[in-house]
């Protein structure tokens, strides 16, 4: 916890946990993405390239594509 982070009561924490899951579940996401209960988030059907360079999700091609103007 950072020095600035507030200490939550058990009741507050429980409430936030419910809200967190609900917000993640209802969040906007590309249609092809799949819900991960383990990570509580929507995830692309294929992971992005693992080369440390930026990629954008392109839903029409259901693939990760290069970021515009980035010098690959």
């Amino acid at each position: 916890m950072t020095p600035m982070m507030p200490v939550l009561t058990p009741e507050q924490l429980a409430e936030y946990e419910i809200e967190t899951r609900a917000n993640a579940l209802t969040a906007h996401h590309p249609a092809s993405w799949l819900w991960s209960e383990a990570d509580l988030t929507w995830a692309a059907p294929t992971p992005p390239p693992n080369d440390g360079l930026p990629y954008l999700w392109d839903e029409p091609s259901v693939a990760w594509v290069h970021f515009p103007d980035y010098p690959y």
Partner: protein
Amino acid sequence: MFSASFKQFLTFVASTVATGQAIFGFGYVGIYVAITNLVSNTGVVSTNTYGAGGVRAYLAAAGYGTDKAIFGYGVDGVSVVSMTNLVSNTGVVSTDTTGVGTARSGLAAAGYGTDKAIFGYGGDYSLTNLYSLTNLVSNTGVVATDTTGVGQARSGLAAAGF
């Protein structure tokens, strides 16, 4: 690719269609909140608007496109997140969008180029892990995957376009 004069024209277009406004958003008031306050082009801060998105603090925000903004990442009360919220040119904050990249808080963001933005640095919830990685934001507000970091990993920093 473009001539110098055309680039100048693009910069001129970007500066003239911007709304001249700003926005504060989210935070912690004893509980995490999704409150926003618009800032007019004369610097007057508006009263609270209560957002449709999830509550968060220790996030970052930047302008993108020519007249929009994006809030992203932060802490939602339980953990660090990579969620983002787009802001329209009328200051309306969208509901949450599923995040891309490493969830973190205490990061910074800024606009760059003529119409893009970048989130960078930050740490995990316990600050056990600090990051120097960055995430680019396209001119349509889509966040890219992590770009390998450069420089000292740290949180609690700030950023600005210039």
